[in-house]
C-alpha cells in the first residue's frame, strides 16, 4: 500500500469549546504536517492549547473546523466508533501518570489493545511479551504495576502504546512523574525508538525533554508561534 510521507496533516484546524454562554477558542487555525519517522515536541504554557491539540491529534476529540489527516485518513468527520478504531490501529498513547490497569500484570496491560482488536489470547501474549522485551523489561512481564518502579511502569505503558504498531506514538509529559535518572532512561528509550523509525510526538513544558526531539512546535493562545528544529 502506498503510504503518504506525512503521517499527520493538519489544515486550518480550530477547536471551540462552549463553556456556558462563553465560547472558548482553544485552537485558532493550525496548519502543519509531521512526516513519517519525525520526533516532534509540542511545547507551550498552560492554556496554550497544547492539550487540546494532543486530544485532537489523538482522535479523542474532533476539530470544530479544518481537516486532519492521520496516516492518509481524514478523521475530521468520523463518528465515535470509527475514532475508536483509528485509536486502536493507528495511535499509541503514553501518559504522564502511566495509566496502567492496577491489579493487572504488565503482560496483560500491554496486551489490552490487542484484546479490543479481537486477537486470540495466546497471540496477544506473545506480541505483548515481544514489546516488553523491546522496551527492556521482558523479565518483569508477570509483575503488577504496584510491584514496578515508576520507570518500569512507564516502560510498560510504552510497550502498550507500541503493541499495535501504531503510525504515531503520542506521549503527554511522559517524564512528568519520574525522577531525573529514570527520565533519562525513558528519553533514551524514545531516542532509540525514533532512530528505529518510529514517529513520536511528545507534549511537554520541559525544555530538557523537548530538546531531545528533532523539531519543536511552540504554542501560545491556540496558535503555533514557532516551528523550529531543536
Amino acid at each position, binding site marked *: 500500500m502506498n503510504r503518504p510521507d506525512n503521517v499527520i496533516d493538519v489544515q486550518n484546524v480550530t477547536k471551540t469549546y462552549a463553556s456556558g454562554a462563553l465560547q472558548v477558542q482553544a485552537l485558532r487555525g493550525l496548519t502543519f504536517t509531521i512526516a513519517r519517522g519525525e520526533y516532534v515536541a509540542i511545547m507551550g504554557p498552560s492554556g496554550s492549547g497544547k492539550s487540546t491539540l494532543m486530544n485532537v491529534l489523538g482522535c479523542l476529540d474532533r476539530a470544530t473546523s479544518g481537516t486532519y489527516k492521520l496516516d492518509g485518513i481524514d478523521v475530521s468527520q468520523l463518528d465515535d466508533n470509527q475514532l475508536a478504531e483509528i485509536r*486502536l490501529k493507528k495511535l499509541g498513547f503514553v501518559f504522564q501518570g502511566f495509566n496502567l490497569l492496577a491489579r493487572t500484570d504488565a503482560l496483560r496491560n500491554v496486551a489490552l489493545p490487542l484484546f479490543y482488536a479481537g486477537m486470540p489470547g495466546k497471540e496477544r501474549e506473545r506480541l505483548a511479551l515481544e514489546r516488553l522485551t523491546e522496551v527492556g523489561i521482558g523479565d518483569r512481564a508477570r509483575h503488577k504495576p504496584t510491584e514496578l518502579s515508576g520507570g518500569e511502569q512507564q516502560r510498560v505503558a510504552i510497550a502498550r502504546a507500541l503493541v499495535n504498531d501504531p503510525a504515531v506514538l503520542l506521549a503527554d509529559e511522559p517524564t512528568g512523574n519520574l525522577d531525573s535518572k529514570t527520565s533519562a532512561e525513558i528519553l533514551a528509550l524514545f531516542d532509540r525508538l525514533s532512530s528505529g523509525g518510529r514517529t513520536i510526538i511528545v507534549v511537554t513544558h520541559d525544555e530538557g525533554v523537548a530538546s531531545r526531539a528533532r523539531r519543536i512546535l511552540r504554542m501560545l493562545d491556540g496558535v503555533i508561534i514557532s516551528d523550529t528544529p531543536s
Partner: protein
Amino acid sequence: MFSYFIEAARVLLANRTRSILTIIGLVVGVATIISVQVAAQGMAGAVNGIFKGTNANTFIVFPKERQGNNVRAALTLSDLALVQQSVPGVVSVIPFSQLRTMVDAGHKRVRLRFGGESDKRFSTSPLVAGRTLNADDIAAASAVCVISDNAFSRLFPDATSPSDVLGRSVYVGSKRYVIVGVQGKAKLDTAALGLDVSSDVAIPYTTYYNTYQRGSSFFAISVLGAQGANLTSLETQTQKVLSQAHGAQYQYFDFGFIAKTVGGFFSIIGLIVGAVGAISLVVAGIGIMNIMLVSVTERTREIGVRKAIGARSSQVLLQFFVESLLLSAFGCLTGMLIGVGLGVIVNKGFIARISGVTGGIPWLEVIVIAVGFATLVTLVFGTYPAYRAAKLDPIEALRYE
C-alpha cells in the same frame, strides 16, 4: 465474546472482597427462596406419603351446622346399623368418640386420648402384645382396653416389655379397664404432625357408649371402609342414606381434607417466604447496581484508558454488562446450591424423621428460579451502570482523579 467473560472474571477476581460482598444479598435471597421451595416440596411429599401410609379408609360424618332442625339431624345408635347395612363397602360404623382425659395406672396419672374402637380396627398401628378388641368385647361391652405405645411408655415407665402390662388395669375416673393388648408405633408417625385421631386408650365402642354417651346423640359417626374401596363414593352414599333417614343435611371429613389443608398451609408459607425473598432480591439487585455504579466511578480513569487505547463504547458496555452478569450468575448459582442444601437438610433432618418420606428436589423449579433471577437482576440492574461506563467521555475520564 468468550474473552469478555475471561476479562470480566479477572477483574472480579482482582477485586475479590468487593465481588463477594456484592453478591451476598443475592446469595441469601436466592438461597431463601430455593430452600423454601425444596422444603415445601419435601413437605408436600411427606404429607402425601403420610396419607398413603395411613389407613385412609376412614371418615367421619356429622350434621351440617346451622340447619333448621338440629334435633332431627342428630345421629343416634340406629344410624350405625343403618349405614352399615345400606352402604356396600362399609366395614364398620361406630360413634365418634374421643376424649382427652386423665388416665390412671396406679402410681402414674397422665392425660391421654381416650375413646371407643371397633373389633374391625380403625387404628393402623401394629399390635405388639396381647390381642385386639374382639366381637365378644363389643357385644358384651366389656371393661377392657388396648393401649398405644404412647400410653404404654407414659403410664408404665418401669415396664420392660409390653407384655408385662397385659392384665393390669387403668382407671378413667372411677371406671377400671383391663389391658388386653398393646399397640406399637405407627409405621408413619401421624401423631407428631398432630394428625392422629386414634385413641391411646381404646375401649369397646359399646362400653364407651354405655358409659359416656347413653341417652345422648353423637357429635359424629366414624366409618371404616373396606380396603381399596372408593372413599368418596362411600362418603357421598353415607351422606345420602343419612339425609334420607333424617330429612337433614350431613357433611363428612377425612384425612384427604387434612392433607389438602396442610398442603394449602405450606403453599401459603411458600408464597409468603417467596414474596419476602423476591423483595430481598430486588434489594440485592439494587445492591449490585450500587456497587457497579461505584465501580464505574472508581474506574473512570481505567475506562478512559481503555477508550483511549481503542475500546469502542459498545465494548466497554459489554465488559461491564458481562461483569454484572458474572456477579449475578455466580451469586444465584451459589444461592441455589446453598438453598438446595438447606432444603435437603430440612427434608432429611426434620420432615423425613416424621414421615419417613419426602418429596424429591424440584430441580426444574430450582434452576428456573436461579437462572431467572440471575437474568432479571443483570438486565434490570446491570444495564444502567454498563451504560454509564460506556457513555463516559475519554478525555474527561482520563482527567478524572
